[in-house]
């Protein structure tokens, strides 16, 4: 059934049985990390400003992740990946600006680890 041509993306899991090596969803309550709260806040601020104009764009960016990325990313990592997709599509930010910021953060973390 996992090859069902009607399936519309890696999220379309209704009725599928766990395959070898797959784990059931962790349904335990857990605290959110600070960065997860930031992602949540950012998405709601963008939403309040009308970006994206419809939730479908937000969902499409998540559901069109490569299956391995969809599986490996956590909930708020998917949100962040989605925002990066449509923020660049809508030209709110360029990919070059995103790349530069990520390189800057990575350099800061590496420096922090070294000290």
């Amino acid at each position, binding site marked *: 059934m996992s090859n069902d041509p*009607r*399936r*519309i993306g890696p999220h379309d899991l209704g009725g599928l049985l766990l395959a070898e090596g797959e784990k059931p969803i962790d349904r335990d309550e857990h605290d959110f990390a600070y960065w997860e709260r930031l992602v949540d806040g950012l998405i709601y601020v963008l939403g309040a400003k009308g970006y994206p104009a*419809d939730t*479908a764009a937000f969902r499409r960016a998540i559901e069109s992740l490569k299956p391995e990325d969809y599986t490996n990313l956590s909930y708020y990592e998917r949100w962040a990946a989605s925002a990066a997709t*449509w923020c660049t*599509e*809508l030209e709110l930010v360029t990919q070059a600006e995103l790349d530069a910021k990520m390189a800057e953060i990575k350099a800061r973390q590496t420096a922090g680890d070294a000290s």
Partner: protein
Amino acid sequence: MNTRFSDGDTVRISHRDDERHHRVPAYVKGHHGTIVRVCAPQVQPEMSAYHKPGEPMRTVYRVRLDQNDLWSDYTGRKSDTVEIEIFEHWLESVNHAP
């Protein structure tokens, strides 16, 4: 806004594929259900997902399906149902025998 279906109508959820983003999971495609609520018109996700207007809007309906019909190996009660909201352009009329 004209609505094609009303409460109590039997419908079939389209079995078709669509490469564009859409809101119809595989497990309901091709199955019959009953309209239990006419919801509001909404922009079409097949277009709005790509930052296009998604007009004209289409009515969304809440459709009730039988669990026993959805899952061939279902062991729950016969009366168990699942409800899902589906856009009008993904629903087909089913002709009743008189």
